[in-house]
């Protein structure tokens, strides 16, 4: 049969009544909170991947039309990094405000400012959806999962 595929189930406090289920390079389903109940019913058909639950928790800032969310990314008990989410609220077409977002991010992130997210790819002019946010978090979390944990070294 098929080689194992990973399905990610994610939650976002910005959309408290929703549940996001996504496959890498596949569709992202937006469902209501009962989706978690469904997964419990179906758990016999899936193997729980060994990857630990990963989460980003922090503060949400509103600055004029921008939303900035800074969080500490943790996997189990250990902190693994920091995530920064920036949203320009009035615009729903990514291509139309990317330059503005870039300028805004550079003002406080300097050299850490990222390039255009791959989730836009070819579809620059389609309407932004919360699923696009979740795909970016999935990619970020996967990147963090793959990073080696830096061992704490004692120095004599």
């Amino acid at each position, binding site marked *: 049969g098929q080689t194992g595929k990973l399905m990610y189930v994610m939650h976002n406090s910005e959309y408290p009544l929703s549940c996001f289920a996504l496959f890498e390079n*596949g*569709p*992202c*389903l*937006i*469902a209501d909170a009962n*989706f978690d109940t*469904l997964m419990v*019913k179906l758990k016999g058909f899936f193997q729980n991947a060994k990857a630990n639950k990963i989460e980003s928790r922090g503060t949400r800032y509103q600055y004029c039309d921008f939303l900035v969310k800074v969080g500490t990314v943790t996997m189990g008990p250990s902190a693994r990094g920091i995530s920064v989410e920036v949203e320009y609220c009035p615009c729903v077409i990514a291509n139309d405000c990317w330059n503005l977002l870039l300028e805004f991010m550079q003002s406080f992130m300097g050299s850490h400012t990222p390039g255009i997210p791959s989730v836009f790819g070819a579809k620059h002019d389609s309407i932004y959806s919360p*699923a696009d946010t979740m795909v970016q978090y999935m990619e970020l979390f996967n990147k963090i999962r793959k990073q080696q944990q830096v061992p704490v070294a004692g120095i004599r």
Partner: protein
Amino acid sequence: MDKSGMPWHLRYLGQPEIGDKNRYALVRNCVDIATSDNLTDFLVEMGFRMDHEFVAKGHVFRKGIMKIMVYKIFRILMPGNTESIEPLSLSYLVELNVVAPAGQDVVSDDMRNFAEQLKPLVHLEKIDPKRLM
């Protein structure tokens, strides 16, 4: 109910509950989820395969928490195309169902009482899904 922009509705129905033989109504575990419109692609990605599809056209009536549906079933001629359909039969199907919290079996008595009122126009019977599979 089929308006564009409305969420898709996914319903999971479990096996009939044990102890069902004495009850007048079929009782099954049920999970209802509203989803985005890419549900069919997503289910295929999850590993599900489509077994059958159909169009139902008719009316929905409500009496308290009871829902009565009177509908005609249409066969779909071209997969995925809900415009090209033909009726499966000339009759309407009458379905009485209730979604209630777990354990509230007394609901099946209310259902039977209501079903009695529909006689002799309609004879509602409990079905055994296993016999149909």
